[in-house]
């Protein structure tokens, strides 16, 4: 592991990443309320505007929200680069992303072009600011396999956002010059595989061995897998635009993503300290569903009619977003948030005269109790399984959504309680100092 680059003293203020992490479960609840409000029809058609509102509240409101916060935190720590005016940057980015996502989803829900246009403007500003700041930092960073993953993930996000903005222009009828179906597929592939899976892969190289006490990922993988995935995405795009070799590029992407999932599962099986850990459960759940979603999409190459079945895109979306990305993100939050809180309290302790004796700093397991996180995990798993079943047995949607609401509320409770613990201990430290 490239721990020599861990410049922990450069960690930005806690509020910089935390505002993003605390907002994500609220968007999860918002997405659940859409499921509850629209009911079973939301799962029937991917082109349904309510479905678009649902997917964007999850991909922008939860996924991008957490990943943006994580990048603002990890860039200074892992790559040793300082983000200029981090509090201002995070405040603006967070406000723009939150309001932009809300406007966009409202625009989809109400099919109202004014809200879509406001969403278009706000999200354009969000990503212009994000690319300017993060791009500047990523140019300056030390070259490592993690920073390569960050660069390629951010570049993928750029492609995803550009395609998304073009599609929004189409929806708001500013342009009608292209086939939205192909652009939509490329938009979601660059978002879900390019932005999400690439960044998860790069961050996994650091956080899985560090927090789950596993052996390191093989060097060949840490060096080549992310660039290979990126090149495969480019080839996939070309093949989709031209109509040639689509099967080959699909297989290539499937093989590379499977490799990541299988190696992660393998090093987790060989972890050095075999104690129960809820993060491990989230990650294993995520990797298994990544494999299942790859299996499902690869099946369409053998049995093409599968791709035309109404349930296929919904099932694939639920497996990939709900089964892979969201669990991995939740698992990461359960490690990163307590670790950051502990780290910041430890740094504050340094400013007090005797760091050992004055105030007891809660350790990571006290910041978020494993038992509470475990309850939340199992409720999420139950809600997820019932959501898949609801594709065929539609009445199950309401029970599934209720469970998912409880699960996201549990996640919010655990994260907000952790924040409260931070503030109360921080107050004690300052009182001890004065």
């Amino acid at each position, binding site marked *: *592991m490239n*721990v*020599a680059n*861990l*410049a*922990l*003293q450069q960690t930005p203020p806690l509020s910089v990443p935390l505002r993003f992490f605390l907002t994500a479960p609220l968007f999860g609840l918002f997405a659940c309320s859409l499921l509850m409000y629209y009911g079973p029809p939301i799962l029937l058609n991917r082109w349904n505007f309510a479905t678009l509102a649902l997917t964007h509240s999850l991909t922008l409101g939860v996924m991008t929200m957490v990943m943006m916060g994580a990048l603002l935190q990890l860039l200074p720590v892992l790559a040793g680069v300082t983000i200029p005016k981090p509090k201002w940057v995070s405040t603006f980015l967070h406000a723009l992303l939150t309001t932009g996502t809300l406007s966009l989803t409202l625009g989809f829900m109400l099919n109202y072009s004014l809200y879509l246009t406001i969403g278009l403007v706000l999200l354009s500003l969000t990503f212009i600011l994000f690319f300017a700041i993060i791009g500047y930092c990523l140019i300056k960073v030390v070259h490592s396999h993690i920073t390569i993953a960050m660069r390629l993930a951010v570049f993928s996000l750029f492609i995803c956002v550009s395609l998304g903005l073009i599609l929004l222009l189409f929806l708001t009828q500013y342009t009608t010059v292209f086939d939205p179906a192909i652009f939509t597929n490329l938009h979601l592939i660059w978002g879900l595989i390019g932005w999400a899976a690439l960044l998860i892969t790069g961050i996994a190289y650091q956080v899985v061995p*560090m*927090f*789950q*006490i596993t052996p390191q990922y093989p060097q060949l993988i840490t060096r080549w897998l992310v660039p290979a995935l990126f090149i495969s995405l480019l080839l996939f795009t070309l093949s989709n635009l031209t109509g040639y070799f689509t099967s080959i590029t699909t297989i290539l992407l499937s093989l590379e993503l499977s490799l990541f999932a299988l190696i992660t599962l393998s090093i987790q099986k060989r972890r*050095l*300290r075999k104690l129960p850990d809820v993060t491990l459960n989230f990650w294993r759940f995520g990797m298994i569903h990544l494999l299942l979603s790859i299996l499902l999409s690869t099946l369409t190459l053998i049995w093409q009619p599968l791709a035309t079945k109404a349930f296929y895109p919904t099932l694939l979306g639920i497996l990939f977003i709900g089964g892979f990305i969201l669990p991995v993100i939740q698992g990461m939050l359960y490690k990163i948030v307590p*670790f950051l809180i*502990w*780290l910041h309290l*430890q*740094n504050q302790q*340094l400013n007090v005269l005797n*760091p*050992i004796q004055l105030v007891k700093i809660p*350790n*990571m397991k006290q910041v978020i109790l494993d038992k509470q996180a475990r309850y939340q995990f199992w409720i999420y798993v139950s809600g997820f399984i019932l959501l898949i079943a609801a594709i065929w047995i539609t009445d199950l949607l309401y029970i599934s959504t209720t469970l998912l609401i409880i699960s996201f509320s549990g996640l919010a409770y655990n994260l907000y309680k952790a924040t409260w613990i931070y503030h109360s201990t921080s107050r004690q430290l300052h009182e001890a100092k004065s």
Partner: protein
Amino acid sequence: MLAEYSLDVSLLEPCEPLERILAALPQLPTGHYLHILHRMEPHPLYPILKQLGYAWITQVGQQVELFIWQQDDHQAEQSVKTLLKI
């Protein structure tokens, strides 16, 4: 008598290693040093050690080894340097 106190934190997840090290330091008698086995370089520990008045040497190999002693304890310092042939 061996001047070394050993502590293996290599199988502990963050933040346990730092907590164990901070708990072990006050029990270090004069003339003794703490030898720590770690999986990674403990960057957050260094400023704390500095503030508490400890000196240290880190050796990064397959495993990370840390040798910590009180800054003004020349006997412990000498033991570490003899051990590491510095």
